[in-house]
């Protein structure tokens, strides 16, 4: 419990690390409509894919140095010596990132999607999909960035994004099904299932990788 408070505090005090990405999310969302004719249907058609890509890019930017600072100032080492395991730390860090970045951008994205299409049911599509997918994105980008760690975030992104394609496709399918008026709850449940799998395994793999970095 104390760990959650400490990690929350560490991230909260670093304004650029969480407010920055949220603003970047806004900027991406704003910049897409500028490139299409505003009155046209085109924007409505592609709006959801803008939303998914924007959330992906935002998470990519925000997670790029999730472990770097703790690695460089010796915190990871300190934590490992004290607890003999890194799992809880990594799990908590990912959770905190989701709370401070994932949830806000999910809410913002939902807000814009309500404005975009006059269809109020978009609330049922955008909010749950964004909430679940951002958590998955954070997990996987954390994995990629734990591999690249101090070798730059481009490498982390390069090895992570291919792993995310299935999630993007799933998100696309959700919108498609919703447009045709099909049930989307089974797809959301599928994504939730993926998340539940990932939530346990990814921190485990990351702790192995970071342990190797510390050696």
């Amino acid at each position, binding site marked *: 419990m104390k760990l959650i408070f400490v990690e929350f505090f560490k991230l909260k005090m670093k304004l650029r690390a969480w407010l920055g990405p949220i603003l970047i999310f806004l900027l991406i969302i704003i910049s897409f409509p500028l490139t299409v004719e505003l009155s046209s249907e085109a924007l409505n058609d592609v709006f959801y894919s803008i939303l998914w890509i924007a959330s992906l890019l935002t998470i990519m930017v925000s997670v790029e140095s999730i472990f770097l600072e703790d690695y460089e100032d010796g915190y990871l080492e300190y934590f490992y010596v004290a607890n003999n395991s890194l799992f809880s730390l990594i799990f908590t860090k990912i959770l905190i990132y989701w709370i401070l970045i994932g949830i806000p951008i999910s809410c913002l994205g939902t807000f814009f999607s309500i404005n975009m299409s006059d269809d109020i049911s978009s609330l049922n599509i955008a909010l749950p999909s964004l909430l679940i997918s951002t958590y998955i994105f954070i997990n996987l980008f954390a994995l990629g960035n734990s*591999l690249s760690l101090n*070798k730059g975030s481009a490498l982390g992104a390069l*090895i992570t994004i291919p*792993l995310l394609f*299935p999630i993007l496709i799933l998100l696309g399918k959700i919108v498609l099904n919703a447009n045709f008026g099909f049930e989307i709850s089974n797809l959301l449940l599928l994504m939730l299932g993926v998340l539940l799998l990932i939530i346990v395994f990814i921190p485990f793999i990351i702790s192995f990788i970071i342990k*190797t970095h510390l050696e």
Partner: protein
Amino acid sequence: MLKKLYHQFASPKTYIILVNKMYPYILYFSVLFYAFALVWGLGFAPADYVQGNSFRIIYLHVPASFLSQSLYIVMAIAAGIFLIWKVKLAAYMIKSIAPVGALVTFIALISGSIWGIPTWGTWWQWDARITSTLILFIMYLGLISLHSSFTNFEKADKFISVLVLIGFVNIPIIKKSVDWWSTLHQPASITLTNKPSIDPTMLYPLIFSMIGFSGIIVSLIILSSKVHIFKRESHKSWVKRNV
């Protein structure tokens, strides 16, 4: 006894000695095989009744796309062996296979593109197979850049193995989901998945070309693994004696 055997078999030294003996045979036989298959396929097999002569690139494209996936499976097996039993040779093999795998995947992509121009009228189509091959290509490049960005090779070996295994779990998922995704679009006019059943006169040269091409790729891997092993084991006395 068993341990000794395993140590001997898995040591880079034994591998190099074995490979040095076998390398010329593999190379010459496979080149011969492939040349034979090409002559048969290009010269004697009948032209396809839909695609005409352009289908003949199949003798490059199919072996390449077959190998692009099977090489990843081989890497995944090696990664498992390295992480579980800590056999160094397995790690060397991953590092040596990755560039060859990238090359083969690249050949598959390019030959597919060239094939696409006469058959689909475009060199790029958002088809499920092409897209997943492109993703595979990027994953190979990701592996190579990950390994090359570390100066400590022992750590790099572990990282690349972990990434290979993660990719191995993910590739079927990516393939399945890309197949699923491609039904979003209108189906391509001629997809590779629904190709007309192949005539024996085309099939036999194809099988020969696959064997020959695989042999050539194996000898390429042997070459790259030799370079890598000599680099990594350069301090050992047996390397100094052999180089």
